[in-house]
């Protein structure tokens, strides 16, 4: 069925649009295969609102006399109202939106049709590949290699075609290890610390099962990771009890007896549906400004969203402690290794690695640790907080990551090169996008659908030709140090920029951000371009003594 067959009424005149902070507008509403277009009817300087149908999470219809009202709730949390004269038109529009906003087939989605004039489909897709990452990271060359054992995605369907593994471990061992891990997600390198060569590995749970199966190759693979050093840590993102229970369904954990050099730490993290429900509850709590303070606080607490932020940041902090301070390598996994595992490993990198705090570095991190690593974006982001559809595999893991990054930025406002606006943009794009970056659930699926050939890459377009000023942090000052966030509940806050994005509250913050820019610009104007560099180098010098101190203590 052609997409256009879903459209019974394409145009309606005299529609009234209501949105937060703006007076109601009258104009024409238009439905296309992928968009909802509203334009007011003034001839000159006509104003238009274009909404990607994919961005619509839920709609509600209401009849008022002969006309109808449609409330549109978007995945970016915007809520709009359309008053449509004519009941039939209203119902037609509503059913078109319902059908077209939840297309199942990837190749029917808008990224396959988005052809802006300034972008071309030629050239490489994405920012970097695993091979390029390896080539650029000299500290890996000695002990690590790129394996293409998964080049046809047969060893692990959700992994990319190339992964980084210990040099001494041969491909056939990887295949064996993959058979012993859920979904074939055998331990691969996620990050190698620039200061001490210690690594963060990630995988899925081992399939030890009820009768404590073992896998020699998996044990050797992990042995090769720590390479003679005494100890590594397995950070298991489930409680000890949950890990124990997982054995009943064929899963399990690395037991002490089989992995004698690995110490296991259990940290309980909620997953899947529970986290999605958190998001739904939080957004619901935020949407009613008439609540009393008590009710608000209890709803905020009850949503548990901030508890998830708290757990993610503390576990990431723990990983960083192991790597940076204790000087040990770490393996992170939960069950499937596609959600919390990626959340923790990428947050740990942000805290540890100055390179991942630049705009390019951060986008590369997301590409490597989320897109290539096989976070199932299509399943997880199928619906956002408003949808009434029965939950399937939705889970806002990626949103949780962005929230945690925002918390880090709040605590280290000078340490990240990018701004809150970039995080907000990514949050929006993950759920509905013109670009192909967040389509599908794995590299294999993206290949099959021809995403790379037929869509544009968001990450590339963010950086080319130049990153927009709004995505930069005007106060950025690189620091080489680990930026340890505080995880006390008092230090964590609701991400107002996202959850209260469409309220007055957020509007005032926009004014403040503009003022920050104007202060910095005035300074740059006075000081000239040379000065900026000067500033940074002088500043870094003041940090050096601390670095040394840090190293000494690490050895302790």
């Amino acid at each position, binding site marked *: 069925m052609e997409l256009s067959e879903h459209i019974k009424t394409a145009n309606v005149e005299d529609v009234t649009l209501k949105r937060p902070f703006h007076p109601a507008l009258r104009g024409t509403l238009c439905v296309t295969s992928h968009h909802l277009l509203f334009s007011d009817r003034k001839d000159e300087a006509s104003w238009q609102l274009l909404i990607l149908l994919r961005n619509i999470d839920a709609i509600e219809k209401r009849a008022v006399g002969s006309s109808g009202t449609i409330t549109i709730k978007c995945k970016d949390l915007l809520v709009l109202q359309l008053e449509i004269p004519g009941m039939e038109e209203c119902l037609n529009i509503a059913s078109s939106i319902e059908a077209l906003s939840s297309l199942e087939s990837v190749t029917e989605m808008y990224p396959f049709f988005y052809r802006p004039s300034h972008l071309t489909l030629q050239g490489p897709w994405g920012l970097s590949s695993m091979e390029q990452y390896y080539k650029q990271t000299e500290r890996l060359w000695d002990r690590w290699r790129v394996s293409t054992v998964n080049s046809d995605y047969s060893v692990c369907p959700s992994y990319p075609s190339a992964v980084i593994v210990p040099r001494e471990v041969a491909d056939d061992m990887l295949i064996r290890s993959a058979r012993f891990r859920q979904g074939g997600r055998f331990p691969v390198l996620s990050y190698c610390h620039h200061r001490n060569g210690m690594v963060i590995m990630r995988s899925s749970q081992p399939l030890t099962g009820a009768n404590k199966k073992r896998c020699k190759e998996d044990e050797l693979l992990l042995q090769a990771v720590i390479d003679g050093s005494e100890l590594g840590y397995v950070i298991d993102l489930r409680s000890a009890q949950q890990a124990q229970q997982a054995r009943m369904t064929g899963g399990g954990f690395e037991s002490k*007896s089989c992995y004698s050099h690995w110490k296991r730490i259990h940290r309980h993290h909620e997953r899947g549906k529970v986290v999605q429900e958190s998001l739904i509850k939080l957004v619901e709590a935020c949407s009613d400004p008439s609540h009393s303070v008590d009710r608000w606080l209890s709803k905020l607490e009850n949503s548990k969203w901030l508890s998830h932020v708290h757990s993610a940041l503390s576990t990431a902090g723990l990983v960083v402690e192991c790597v940076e301070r204790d000087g040990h390598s770490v393996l992170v996994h939960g069950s499937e290794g596609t959600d919390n595992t990626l959340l923790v490993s990428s947050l740990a990198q942000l805290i540890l690695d100055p390179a991942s705090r630049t705009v390019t570095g951060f986008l590369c991190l997301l590409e490597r640790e989320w897109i290539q690593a096989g976070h199932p974006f299509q399943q997880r982001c199928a619906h956002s907080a408003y949808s009434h559809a029965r939950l399937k595999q939705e889970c806002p893991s990626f949103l949780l990551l962005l929230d945690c990054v925002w918390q880090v930025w709040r605590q280290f406002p000078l340490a990240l090169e990018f701004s809150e606006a970039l995080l907000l943009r990514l949050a929006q794009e993950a759920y509905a996008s013109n670009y192909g970056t967040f389509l599908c659930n794995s590299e294999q699926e993206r290949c099959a659908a021809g995403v790379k050939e037929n869509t544009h890459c968001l990450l590339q377009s963010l950086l080319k030709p130049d990153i927009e000023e709004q995505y930069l942090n005007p106060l950025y000052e690189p620091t080489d140090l*680990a930026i340890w966030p505080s995880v006390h509940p*008092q230090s964590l806050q609701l991400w107002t920029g996202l959850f209260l994005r469409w309220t007055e509250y957020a509007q005032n913050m926009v004014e403040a951000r503009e003022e920050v820019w104007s202060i910095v610009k005035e300074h740059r104007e006075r000081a000239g371009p040379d000065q900026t560099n000067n*500033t940074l180098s002088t*500043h870094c010098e003041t940090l050096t003594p601390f670095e040394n101190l840090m190293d000494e203590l690490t050895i302790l």
Partner: protein
Amino acid sequence: MEHIRMPKVENVRLVDRSSSRRIQVGTLYLTATHIIFVGKGSEDRNELWVLHSLVCNVVKHKSSQSGYPLLIHCKNFQVIQFIIPQESDCHNVYISLSRLSRPEKYEELYCFSFNPNVDKAEREHSWDFLNLKAEYSRMGLPNKLWHVTPINREYRVCDTYPADLFVPKSVTLPVIVGSSKFRSRGRFPTLSYYCKENHATICRSSQPLSGFSARCLEDEQMLQAIMKSNPGSRFMYVVDTRPKLNAMANRAAGKGYENEDNYCNIKFQFIGIENIHVMRNSQQKLIEVSALRSPSMGEFLLGLENSDWLRHIKSTMEAGIFISKAVAEEGVSVLVHCSDGWDRTAQVCSVASVLLDPYYRTIKGLMVLIEKDWVSFGHKFSHRCGHLDGEPKEVSPVIDQFLECVWQLMEQFPCAFEYNEKFLISIHNHVYSCHYGNFICNSQKERKDLCIKEKSHSIWPHLWESKLDFMNPLFKPDQSQNQGLLRPSTAPYCFKYWRRLYNRFDRELHPRQSELDCLMTIKEETQQLEEELALYEQKLAVLDKERAKTLYMQKGVLDSKQALWSLPLDTSLANTPQDYIGGFIGGAPNVFTLQQGERESAELSLFGDKPKSSDADSSDQESGVADFSSHSSGEESLPSEDSVKYPDSDETGPNRA
């Protein structure tokens, strides 16, 4: 001095509240004015100074292996734990401190012995820094409708009011006297704020002694005169800030509220702010929540909810919003009262003023506002802050709530205030510290009788000197939305927990880098560059401009800039790790804690202070807290015991080995 049983104790341990593993050993001194702890074994000046007047209470805890713990809670929310080796020493320190922190006479307060190096003239001058007469004339008073009445010059009509009071010109002395007799404690309706633009006013008073049916003609005339002094309006609001039930209960005691039938053209309104006792208990709960050690997110949020604190802040704010809108948008005058008119009334009038008048959103303006609405109108600082040993039920965080309302507004309007939160926190500290004379006593009369101005110093010039620390770099006074009335949202999510105040001394809880400090540095630097540029341009003009000179200029600018940037910002703290284990293990065993402490004490500072300028108070010792000027290495090593951190619960016995 006679109260000090124990001037010095050696080998005392100072325990960092955030992590019991950070302990410092040193000597504890008790002086007539301060508790002083001097850490030993470090070249840096590791000292902790706490004013006795800031001590809220002292508690002895059960003895532990290493000695006798003494917990000191301060009014500025600092919590200090000492462990004293000998029981008798601990007891003596406890007894001494209990007495020293609860002075019986005003003369014992620190402000009377505090003697900075200034002469008499300078001290007197410090009291002239703020001038309320000038403030009223800034508002446009006196004018043809309002004038100062001499009636309270000797504090005879109302001993808790200031000497100079503004009343409508049309009101005669007998009317004032009559009205004052009909008002609780003689606090008759008088002007607090006058809006030049539309002549609407905010007036304040105490509750009328109406009982169930009493009337007072003079009081009715008084209100009528106030309404008529606002020629543009045909009625006025009377706002009773109490919950209706409380106000009605007061009627049985011969007090109460205005009957709309008796007064012409008033609109009466209850607002429902709870009384001082409710507020005291609420803050106590809040403090307990803030002091929780590694609470879970849920515990913290539920604790915050149960304290009800933010609900009270919201109701105070809403009262302020109601009044400010009545004045600015409707042009209607408002009379505000509660019971006595010195707590909720002061809060609400001053919150409304901050919303109405951008002047109060400047540093000088906030000082004046506090001096006017709080100090001069007889907010009972001595009782509410517990300066002297007395009735604990009189203590209540009324001014804390006002300062917090201002903070909540600053969070909503980041560009509308000239000052930053450090300013509010400094004021808070000094309200309680008894370091300066401003907040001593309960009324202007008491202060006059005690010769406060002759015997102590004023805080305001002192704060003014540190002005740069208190500036908000984002302040944009010329922006249209920052002029005139602020219209804050009262959506519940706009009321946030004030971490900087309640966890002020828990340094690891705060952002490691300060955006505002950084912006301030940038701004100052820009200004300096501009000044230099102007200077060079001047020179150039004099030297009859040659090309070569231009090059010289650029070089000069470069040098000066580099020098400025060598000032370290807060980034130096970036590498302080956090306690990621805290909440997850059920408290490390005591023995372990102490060994760890012993090992590390030599290299660790406790609350190692940020580089200067991050906390305005840390620079002046007298204010209660001194620098720990050592580095903040703040390292904790991981406990290496599996049993503590890595419960391998799944393992069976033999496997474990």
